[in-house]
């Protein structure tokens, strides 16, 4: 080859390389999409913006569940410089070992990304740290919100929030590890309303994951939608008063507004301050509470099942009236009890024979044994009679869940015929076999909520609205009122004689002393639930005023004996407080408040 021609070889090599570059550049810049995606994945990060959780107020607009700012102390290990451990120990209250342990944990997670060093510091704790935090590079605070309960009451109703579990994360794509979710009570059942909707902010990050600004001026961001505020049916003043009354007692108070089915208070004792299950101390406190022998986490109002005792006689009377085996003037005799098949079901001394009104006010056992037997025997077989009877009972919301709007409700127990078939064989049981049902003992199980609801039915003369704890979501009615109405199958006129009997209970019967005002007529019924494990449970149900009922209350006090001694006064105090706003019987109030029935 001629020397001059060698330039073509050289030019060809130059051109070949340039062409190779042009082709390769075209391929990665124009044809291949993966580099653009990778670039986006590297530099654009979606950051969650957490909405504030909805606030819960009581029926009078008082805030009972509030949010307060809390702070997570975060650390980015890469930015941490050597620091004065002693001063840091003082600041955080941690010992040296756990500081090192937490730092190592953060390093293991990532050297460039922030991780939690101390979670959920309360405002006052953070303020103490905040001033000196600048001395410790790499540490900074992240705000989040915590729940606060200004009234320190109604923990079982309100529930609490906790970190979401893996199971929930798997089944509901909304949740991510580390999120918080309502775990019980209203917090749980209204979770979707309360939590709001998380927003997403797209930001640009540098190679060390530091945020460098908004991506595309925030065009793709979605705004966080704050949680909806709830208005509860609870009257927090009444709730607190109820909790005061139940101090040092074991039991429950449930008050319902009959007209609406709204629960005015739901008191349980033993109980706890809901603020205990908030923030950093939650898991620790939860452990302590769950191991407490008094079982403060137990929601008695929904989950404890007691026999209804003598209060059940009201149902017997109503069913007897409806079935036509009883009228106002039906007399039965009672000579110290009800005698059957050579056995006796005892009764206290009172005048005999007696009619319906007196049978209620004096709470005669024999009278209702007769009524129960008459109802069952009115049908060809005991079983069909029992079925009819049971159907009537079930209409009062017993033996089934009422469907209250918080989780954990117990069904209670009104046995099916099959239940007795199993015990006594089919056709081998008669009214007398199960005679203790007539006075509300035996196998019956009723929750305090069901009892209060039953009281509400009496106040309404035959119907009720499904009891509920939340009435407004974001200012709008939470339920269509009409959908809540349920009726019993007892005619309305049959209620009047029974209610007259309940009125007599207060005026001259077993509930004397409950009447607190000249103007307000109260109707009630005592009960004593026999308890095979110890002293009987004291029960009292009542509603007032008689002709225009505003409140229906059921009170259970465990292991303290007769209904009239503890449950009745407590019940009347609740009604008095709700209707008049004050207590005019300081001696009764004092006796109830100071009664310590737990520790004796």
């Amino acid at each position, binding site marked *: *080859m001629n*020397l*001059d021609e*060698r*330039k073509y*070889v*050289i*030019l060809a*090599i*130059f*051109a070949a*390389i*340039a062409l*190779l*570059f*042009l082709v*390769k*550049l*075209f391929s*990665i*810049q*124009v044809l*291949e999409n*993966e*580099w*653009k995606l*990778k*670039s*986006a994945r*590297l*530099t*654009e990060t979606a950051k969650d913006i957490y909405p504030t959780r909805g606030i819960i107020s009581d029926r009078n607009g008082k805030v009972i569940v509030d949010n307060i700012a809390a702070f997570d102390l975060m650390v980015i290990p890469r930015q941490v410089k050597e620091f004065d451990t002693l001063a840091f120990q003082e600041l955080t209250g941690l010992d040296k070992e756990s500081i090192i342990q937490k730092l190592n944990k953060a390093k293991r997670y990532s050297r460039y990304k922030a991780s939690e060093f101390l979670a959920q510091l309360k405002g006052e704790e953070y303020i103490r740290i905040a001033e000196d935090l600048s001395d410790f590079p790499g540490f900074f605070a992240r705000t989040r919100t915590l729940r606060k309960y200004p009234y320190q009451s109604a923990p079982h109703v309100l529930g609490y929030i906790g970190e979401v579990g893996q199971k929930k994360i798997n089944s509901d794509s909304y949740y991510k590890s580390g999120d918080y979710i309502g775990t019980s009570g209203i917090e749980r059942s209204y979770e979707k309303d309360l939590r709001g909707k998380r927003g997403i902010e797209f930001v*640009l*990050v*540098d*190679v060390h994951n530091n945020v*460098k600004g908004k991506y595309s001026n925030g065009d793709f961001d979605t705004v966080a939608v704050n949680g909806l505020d709830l208005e509860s049916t609870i009257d927090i003043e009444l709730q607190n008063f109820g909790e005061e009354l139940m101090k040092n007692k074991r039991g429950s108070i449930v008050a319902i507004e009959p007209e609406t089915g709204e629960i005015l208070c739901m008191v349980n004792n033993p109980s706890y301050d809901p603020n205990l299950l908030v923030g950093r101390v939650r898991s620790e406190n939860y452990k302590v509470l769950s191991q407490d022998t008094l079982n403060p986490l137990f929601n008695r109002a929904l989950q404890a099942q007691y026999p209804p005792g003598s209060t059940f006689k009201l149902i017997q009377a109503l069913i007897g009236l409806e079935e036509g085996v009883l009228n106002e003037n039906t007399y039965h005799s009672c000579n110290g009890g009800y005698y059957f098949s050579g056995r006796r079901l005892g009764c206290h001394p009172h005048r005999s024979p007696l009619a319906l009104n007196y049978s209620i006010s004096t709470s005669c056992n024999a009278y209702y044994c007769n009524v129960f037997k008459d109802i069952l025997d009115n049908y060809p077989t005991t079983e069909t009679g029992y079925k009819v009877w049971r159907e009537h009972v079930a209409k009062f919301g017993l033996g089934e869940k009422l469907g209250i709007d918080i989780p954990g409700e117990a069904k209670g127990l009104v046995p099916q015929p099959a239940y007795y078939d199993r015990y006594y064989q089919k056709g081998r049981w008669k009214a007398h076999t199960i005679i203790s049902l007539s006075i509300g003992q035996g196998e019956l199980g009723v929750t305090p909520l069901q009892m209060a609801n039953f009281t509400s039915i009496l106040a309404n003369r035959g119907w009720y609205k499904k009891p509920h704890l939340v009435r407004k979501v974001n200012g709008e009615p939470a339920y269509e009122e009409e959908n809540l109405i349920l009726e019993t199958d007892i005619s309305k006129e049959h209620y009047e004689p029974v209610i007259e009997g309940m009125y007599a209970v207060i005026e001259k019967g077993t509930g004397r002393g409950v009447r607190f005002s000249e103007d307000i007529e109260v109707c009630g019924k005592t009960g004593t639930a026999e308890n095979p494990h110890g002293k009987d449970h004291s029960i009292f149900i009542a509603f007032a005023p008689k002709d225009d009922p505003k409140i229906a209350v059921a009170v259970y006090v465990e292991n303290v004996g007769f209904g009239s001694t503890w449950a009745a006064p407590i019940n009347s105090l609740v009604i008095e407080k709700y209707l008049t706003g004050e207590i005019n019987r300081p001696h009764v109030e004092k006796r109830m408040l100071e009664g310590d029935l737990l520790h004796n």
Partner: protein
Amino acid sequence: MVKRSNGIFGEFDFPLFIVFILLLFFGWFNIYSASLNLDHLSIFDSSQEYGKQFIWICVSIGIGFFIMLLDGGIFKTLSIPFYGFTILLLIAVLLFGKKVNGATSWFGFGSFGIQPSEFAKLGLALVIANFISDGFPFSQKIDFSIFGIRIHFSTDLLALLGLIGLPALLIVLQPDPGTMLVFLAFMLVLYRGGFLETPLYMGLLAIIIGVLTLLFIHSSVDILSLEVHGLFFLILGIVLFVILSIYFFNYFTPPRFRTQMVKNAIATGILAVLIMGCTYFVYHSERFLNSKEELVLAEESPDEVKLTSILKKHHKQRIDVLFGHKKDIHDIGYNVHQSKIAIGSGGIKGKGFTDGTLTKFKYVPMQSTDFIFCTIGEEWGYLGSALVVILFLFMLFRIIIIAERQRSVFTRMFAYSVAGIFFIHFTINIGMTIGLCPVIGIPLPFFSYGGSSLMVFSAMIFILLKLDSERLDILR
């Protein structure tokens, strides 16, 4: 003398000058974007890399004017002393230099530094041009044949290789093997100067066969349940290629050259297989240089036993990553991977000046120096990166055109040196940012931040412009 120039712009080559200025200022803007500090927004702020680069640009243009004022003959005269001076500098830097990134290649003066190896390129370019144009004393031709293949060369070639080898050796001692590779550029000069016809072709053959060997070195194909190594097919391919080329060239070769042609073809084939064998040996050298026991031990506890091998572990890793045998985006491959993301995400039009997200947020290491091409690719897109490639190609072509219009062999050879040096920098630097070359840290002329390289590259252009402007005056 047909025509005499009037002043320094008489025969000034404006196309080369303009493309030089374009590259210079486009480069400066990209350094601004790549190392932008939001507290120092002015492009003239001398506390930042872009401000410093502006000073270097001024100095370089100043040097350029100074060069234009000189008489062109002085470059030939000074070539040997200047070469000697750069060799002394290279020795001095080994003794007194500053260690940066593991190589003793810098003299530091305050916040500025100079790199003698950059000046060595210029010295070598001048001295090679000088010797090729004037010839060597005691020149002799050597001519013999082995196995019927005639080998002939002159002692001039040995002397030239010596001139190139001396600075190359000193730079390897720093050690800065990347810069040493730039001296390959002079192979093009020697080729054009009348040397190395066969070696150049052999070099090309070696590159092709070497790349193919490394591509197939870990592959194997199942044929009838027999595992056949991929390299077996490479050998098969070479044999087939030799047979076909003999058969094919038979038609075009005059009968009296046919025996020589067949011999050449077979020799090429044998050479190709030998190159393949050598590549294989070097790549797997630890298999041949160690006993079986040592190999087994090393397999069990790789950290304790040190095997004898030609390639260091990280060399082998870079080769593996380049040829796709290993996907390592954290260690060796990290730079290239990030660089490809930056360039690839630029799309056609790019993300806009100073709006490259990977550039801005420092995702690519050494962005203002070795990986400056990422900024171009990301912020200016394919339009920008293709423009840079085309500008460089234009510059290379222009330099060759200038070279070929010289009557002076010195100027022509100097021009070829300049073209070769720019070409190697261009090829290796851009090639590594888009994953076509292994990562070798050498700058992209006029784009990478750095004073020494900019001054030397500018000086080369201006010396060439000066010599070219005098092409009609004197014959050197």
